[in-house]
């Protein structure tokens, strides 16, 4: 290190022999800086993923006969994958997930965009308070948010039902089908709105103000500025939030699992990740759960890559 510093301070002096010694030396420093992150990544991400993939090719099976023989680990090849892909429960759970996603993703992003644009208006009042208020639900942990909403949905504790009963309209069925999808989506939108809004708002703030001045001179009103200038210029942020929302929806787990204890409409395999959890811990079939989660991960990867490929020009074309 000191040799590098001294060679910077006195450029007229020849480069010290130490610095010239091994061609690897200048490249050790970056690796050392990255090492902690690399170690954590390998310990908590890479190695567990590889272990899960390994597990997905095994199964705990009774090999010695008997009605109560102990199960031992056996290699079964792709059998877990075949069983997982041919399980009608997985397909049904993906269908339910799609219904949930179709409601929650457009609502979250649409509302986030609307709020971000509104907060970016020059004549906004109480801007900082609004930003904080919209962002606050994101800070509430998922399980607590779900329990909170759960009590607002339960017929006997819900203030909404209290009002509707007082008006003579009877109970609103928040936790039965088909209202359940809307109720679940509501929790997701309420929680995810703030984060997406902040990302979009930050993107808006980085647009130089001269563009707006030019537009106003050309006679554009606020709506036209938003539609023709702001949104096209925030396309990278929009694509990013859309991708993150999509991935988060594919991994939806906390809301249905926590609401499950409040209603019988949610089965053990309501969403794909709930099925993975049930297989691993309810059925004591960790290998089968590993196979299903690998399938889901590959599916998520494929969708993300396709999405980025399709939108690449729009999202990152300017920078290429």
């Amino acid at each position: 290190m000191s040799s590098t510093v001294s060679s910077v301070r006195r450029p007229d002096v020849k480069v010290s022999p130490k610095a010239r010694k091994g061609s690897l030396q200048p490249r050790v420093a970056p690796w050392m800086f990255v090492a902690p992150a690399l170690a954590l990544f390998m310990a908590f991400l890479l190695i567990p993923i590889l272990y899960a993939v390994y597990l997905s090719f095994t199964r705990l099976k009774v090999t010695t006969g008997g009605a109560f023989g102990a199960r031992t680990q056996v290699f079964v090849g792709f059998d877990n994958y075949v069983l997982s892909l041919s399980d009608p429960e997985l397909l049904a759970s993906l269908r339910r997930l799609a219904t949930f996603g179709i409601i929650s993703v457009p609502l979250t992003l649409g509302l986030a965009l609307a709020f971000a644009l509104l907060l970016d208006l020059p004549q906004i009042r109480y801007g900082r308070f609004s930003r904080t208020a919209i962002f606050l639900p994101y800070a509430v942990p998922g399980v607590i948010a779900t329990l909170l909403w759960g009590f607002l949905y339960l017929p006997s504790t819900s203030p909404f039902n209290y009002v509707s009963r007082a008006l003579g309209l009877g109970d609103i069925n928040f936790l039965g089908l088909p209202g359940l999808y809307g109720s679940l989506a509501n929790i997701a939108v309420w929680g995810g709105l703030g984060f997406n809004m902040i990302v979009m708002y930050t993107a808006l703030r980085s647009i130089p103000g001269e563009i707006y001045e030019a537009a106003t001179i050309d006679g554009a009103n606020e709506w036209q500025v938003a539609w023709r200038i702001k949104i096209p210029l925030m396309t990278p942020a929009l694509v990013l939030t859309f991708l993150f929302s999509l991935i988060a929806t594919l991994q939806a787990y906390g809301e249905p699992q926590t609401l499950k204890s409040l209603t019988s409409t949610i089965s053990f395999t309501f969403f794909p990740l709930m099925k993975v959890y049930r297989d691993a811990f309810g059925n004591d079939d960790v290998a089968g759960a590993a196979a299903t989660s690998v399938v889901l991960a590959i599916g998520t990867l494929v969708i993300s890559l396709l999405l980025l490929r399709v939108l690449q020009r729009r999202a990152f074309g300017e920078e290429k």
Partner: protein
Amino acid sequence: MKITRTTAALASLGIAALTLAGCSSAGASTEGSTSDTETAASGPVTLDYWGWAPNMQKVVDIWNKANPSIQVKYTEAAGASDLPPKLLSAERAGNGPDVAQAEYQKLPSLVVGGVVKDITDNVKSFKSEFTDSSWASTTLNGAVYAVPQDAGPMMMFYRADLFAKYGLDEPKTWADFATAAEKIHAADPSVYLGTLPQDGGTFTGLVQQAGGNWWTADGDKWKVSIGTSPSTDVADYWQKLAKTGALYTQPFLTPEWNKLVADGKILTWSAGVWAPGVIESVAPDTAGKWAAAPLPQWKSGDVNTGFMGGSAVFITKSSKHPVESAKFLEWLNGSTEGSGYLASISNIYPASIAGQAGLASASVPTLMSAQTDFYSIAAEVSAHTAKVTWGPNVQTAFDAFSDKLQAAQTGGTSFSDALKTVQDLTVADLEKNGFTVER
């Protein structure tokens, strides 16, 4: 440069993998020693005990005070349904406790999961403290795997005051129960006589009362009888009753159910003998207004019932102190002193002979303070409980049952068909795990 980068990446991956492998504890636990080589440790020993029984820490404190050489560290590790997966994960990682509580129905799957020690020899000295039928619940293929702690023969608990208000008699048969349900619902549509049994625990108890068993072991083979009579007969009865709208059709012990019970909108709960403590914790203002009765029967004059819950305590394969653990379990579950504390402090119905005898003079739970003969009714019911066998995949079947029954209830399809689907799923799961199933 390319070579250096790739080599460096591979090298760091390899080093990290080796480091982590070295950090983790040794893999598979060694086989538990047989009783020939088991000896008591010299010097004070600490046992880890995982369970969920209420106030167990107080009972353990009493033992710890009297036994400085065998100290027990109690942890309320998880509830009844969450403890088995925790135990399996912990044991497979080498971090398991010495003794752990398990429901009778989950014991076979834990045995098959390879985490339970065969304690046939350890319990020889105190076999007489439990009845043969108690030991039958923890004996599989002739080997004893756990010491029974509490028993859960099913009874019906009902609001005596509201029954009087609606002019109802205690239903002695299921036909009486159906008539009463419709009568109450006609009188007040917001009141339900009972809850639809959509969880495996309640439903199998009712099937046992009707003389059925979801699993039976025939030598090396399993026979699954979920989608056949009498299981389907019980399902048909409850479906007919649910169709009249006289039952509450959401699961019990949810916040909604608790509120309805507290408000007097649900009048009965058929559950194990341990139910009074639970009802009191969710509806404390209704104390003193309940009464207990044997379950309604299929044929007038019968005295059958099934089991719902009830648990035993086992010694794990990885425990280093099986002799001391067996000593502790004998005191806790079998002795007069220990069983007495289980009843008075933990509010459970002990399985031991001494425990049940000791209850004859105990005061009845405050939930039914007016019914002074509660414990003699409980003892009578307990004496006529069906013999039960549990298969190695009880949780799988129970989860599938809950899902399919709830779907049939919302969709209006046949409960019997749902049971047939559960049968197919259970058999497929058994075969997938390498068991032989009699078709």
